[in-house]
C-alpha cells in the first residue's frame, strides 16, 4: 500500500509539471476514482471526477447536412405565397372584363340551377341558398382569380417535384 501511495505521490508531482505520459495519467485517474484515496490527496478527487464526467457529454442534435435544400424550399414557399397574394390583390384593382362578367354570370346561373336541383327535398336547402347568394356577390372576381390559381398550381407542382 505504501509503495502504491509513494508511486502516486511521485506521479502527481510529475502530473503537476505536465511531465506524465497518458499511461501514467490513466493510473492517476484510476487511483483517484477509487474509494481508498489517501486523506492528504483527497482534494484531487473532484478534479479527476470532473474530467471523467465531462468526457461523457454528448452532442445530441442531428448532423445538419441539408441546409442548402431547406433554404431553396423556403424560398419557393415564399414565391408561392407571393403569387397567391398577387392573385388576390390584382383583380380588385383591375376588375373583370365584360366578357368575363357574362361568363361568370352564366356559371353562376348554372350553379344555381344545379343547386336548386340538389335542394329539392331538402328542408335546410333554402337557408343554405341564402348564404350562397352572399357568396355569389363576390363571384365576379372568381374568374380572374381562377386564372391566377392555375399559375399557383404550376408553382405548387414545382414544390412537390422539389420535395
Amino acid at each position, binding site marked *: 500500500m505504501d509503495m502504491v501511495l509513494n508511486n502516486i505521490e511521485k506521479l502527481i508531482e510529475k502530473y*503537476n509539471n505536465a511531465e506524465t505520459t497518458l499511461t501514467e495519467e490513466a493510473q492517476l485517474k484510476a487511483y483517484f476514482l477509487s474509494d481508498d484515496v489517501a486523506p492528504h490527496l*483527497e482534494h484531487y478527487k473532484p*478534479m479527476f471526477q470532473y*474530467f471523467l464526467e465531462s468526457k461523457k457529454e454528448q452532442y445530441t442534435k442531428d448532423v*445538419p447536412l441539408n441546409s442548402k435544400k431547406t433554404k431553396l424550399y423556403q424560398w419557393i414557399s415564399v414565391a408561392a405565397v407571393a403569387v397567391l397574394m398577387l392573385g388576390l390583390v390584382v383583380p380588385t384593382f383591375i376588375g373583370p372584363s365584360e366578357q368575363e362578367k357574362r361568363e361568370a354570370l352564366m356559371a353562376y346561373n348554372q350553379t344555381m340551377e344545379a343547386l336548386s336541383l340538389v335542394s329539392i327535398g331538402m328542408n335546410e336547402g333554402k337557408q343554405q341558398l341564402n348564404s350562397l347568394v352572399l357568396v355569389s356577390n363576390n363571384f365576379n372576381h372568381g374568374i380572374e382569380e381562377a386564372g391566377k390559381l392555375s399559375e399557383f398550381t404550376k408553382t405548387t407542382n414545382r414544390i412537390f417535384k422539389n420535395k
Partner: protein
Amino acid sequence: MKQADFVNIVMPFKDKVFRLAKRLLVSREEAEDATQEILLKLWKNNKKIEDYKNVEAFSMTMTKNFCLDRLKSKQAQNLKIVHSNYTDGNTSLQKQVEAKDSVDWVSKIMEDLPEQQKIIVQLRDIEEYDFAEIAKMLDMNETAIRVNLSRARKTIREKLTNTHGYGIK
C-alpha cells in the same frame, strides 16, 4: 462523398468538437450552434476532406478557431454570452458556496482559466490526446503546451487545496 460516408467520418469525434466548443463558449446552446456550423462547414468541404490525413485534428483546429472568433466578436460588440452559470472572472467564496458540490466547483475553476489553458486541459485531461496531436491541432510546440498545461493544473490544484482547507466540500 455521400452523406452517409461523411456522417461515418465525423461520428467518432463530433462529441469532442461539441465539448471543446462548450469549454470555450460555456453555454450548451451556443456550443450546439457552433458544432452545427462546424459540421456544416466540414460537409461543404467534403471533397477536400478526402485529402486530409487527419480529419479529426483538422476539425478540432477549426473548432478552436471558430469559437475564439465567436468570443472575440462578442467582445467587440460588447456582448456577453448568456448562459445560466455566468461568472464574473473572480473565484469568490460565494461561488464556492453556490457550487452544488466540489465537482461543480472544478467546472467553475476551469471557467476562470485563460482560454489557451482551457483548450489544453480539455484536449489533454478530458479528451486524452497525446502531446504530438495537441501540438498539431494548436500549431504550438510541445514545450509550450506542457508549460501551459502545468500552469493550469497547478491553478486547479491550488484552488482545490484552498477549498479543501476551508472545509467546503
